[in-house]
């Protein structure tokens, strides 16, 4: 409870400093929190903000869904077959280092400006993150459990389903969590070059129109959603792999 108060007070102090600084500077380039808040209300009333949120989240959810499946499958394949790691794994490892921001223009040139390009940009990034974590998770499993399962008669499929995946799960979950964070960061770049709606898209649209307060609203809303989703995700998943946390504490 005490920690919650500290957090709330921190938030209040930050807003207060922002208010003071922007009043002293007194320029349109740095609107006061009050102005930004009033813009927020207007934008909610106009309905644009809600549409921006829904469109952006829609893109993230689709990408996350595709990337999770792809990342896990690729992770299993590359961890279990060394030929796959040397081939597909090397490509993924190299691609992982490529900046998605720099890839956006290529993707637009090749696949156009539509939804597909945006989802592709996000999916590409999240897949590499989830792949890497799944791979590491599977490589990290305790051999003793695999042996124990084999001596209980587990075949290959049973091993993956009941032994390898549950053990790798905490890693995969971490991968998904990082993937979500990345998605919220890179969505801005993905939407930069045009869309109908989208929080990232409108940051640039407002920038062109010099609507700094609205830019700030979009940025804060995007960041807040990313923050809350991350915390929510942590809360939900923590319950499901309690055993892992406790084992960690024992060590």
């Amino acid at each position: 409870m005490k920690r919650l108060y500290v957090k709330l007070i921190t938030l209040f102090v930050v807003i207060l400093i922002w208010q003071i600084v922007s009043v002293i500077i007194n320029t349109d380039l740095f609107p006061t929190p009050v102005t930004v808040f009033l813009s927020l209300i207007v934008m909610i009333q106009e309905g644009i903000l809600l549409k921006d949120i829904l469109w952006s989240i829609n893109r993230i959810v689709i990408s996350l869904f595709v990337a999770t499946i792809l990342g896990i499958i690729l992770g299993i394949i590359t961890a279990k077959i060394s030929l796959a790691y040397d081939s597909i794994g090397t490509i993924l490892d190299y691609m992982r280092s490529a900046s998605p921001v720099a890839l956006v223009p290529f993707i637009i040139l090749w696949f156009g400006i539509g939804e597909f390009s945006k989802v592709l940009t996000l999916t590409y990034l999240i897949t590499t993150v989830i792949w890497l974590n799944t791979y590491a998770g599977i490589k990290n499993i305790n051999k003793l459990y695999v042996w124990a399962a084999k001596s209980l008669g587990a075949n290959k499929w049973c091993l993956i389903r009941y032994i390898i995946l549950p053990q790798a799960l905490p890693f995969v979950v971490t991968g998904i969590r990082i993937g979500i964070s990345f998605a919220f960061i890179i969505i801005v770049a993905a939407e930069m070059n045009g869309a109908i709606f989208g929080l990232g898209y409108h940051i640039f649209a407002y920038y062109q129109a010099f609507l700094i307060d609205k830019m700030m609203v979009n940025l804060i809303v995007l960041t807040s959603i990313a923050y809350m989703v991350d915390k929510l995700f942590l809360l939900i998943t923590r319950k499901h792999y309690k055993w892992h946390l406790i084992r960690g504490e024992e060590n």
Partner: protein
Amino acid sequence: MKKIKNLNIKNLVVQFDDLTVLDNINLTINQGEFICILGSSGCGKTTLLNVMAGFINPTSGQVCYENRIIKKPTSEICTIYQEHALFPWMTIYENIESGLKFSKVNISKRKSIIKKFLHDFDLKGYGEYYPHEISHGMRQRVAICRSLAVNPAMILMDEPFSSLDPVTKLKLQKYILNVWKKTNKTIVFVTHDIDEAIFLSDKIFVLTKKPSTIKKEIINPLQRPRRDSVIISGEYIKFKQFLLKLINKINSDE
């Protein structure tokens, strides 16, 4: 006539790179025997067990079970490890269930089997607990249940009670003797504890230091059933002295 299943090891050699761990091991284990493999720490006991279980392939020689060469793990031979190898993400119930699931036993049958085991091993009411929530002794009981549930002909045990306190240890030794008596399973029990070997076994194989080979195959002279008080009987002490002498001799051989 009842068919006797036995495990046969012929001229077994296991090397890891340049290190010879097991050197020319020959032994036969008959169905229903309680075997202890006795040796000091780091002498390759666990390696021998892992070869029997099919996890390690021999460099030369062979391991046969019922005249079939063992190359990979089978559910007829089940291993129980020193460390609690219970799956930590599964409850006690799910742990015991796991082997049954692997061999596709249907759900209602699984239920009744597990219920019986939980009852027989004094684990009633602990089904929904996770391994980290119960004591060491209980965990090893669960591990024994889990192995018995798949009904193997042979159980290999790798110092399963070495991390337990003496009271729990004795209790579990009695459990395993009870199981053995009731089910007529073959048990191969690896230990470095002389008392444990004497209390449990029909026959003891004493291993030398690395590269390990079998120093001696000894029939346990003690009558069954053995009570707690057996450890102060003259016969017991004589046998223990004999084993101690043997092990001291092994240790002093350079």
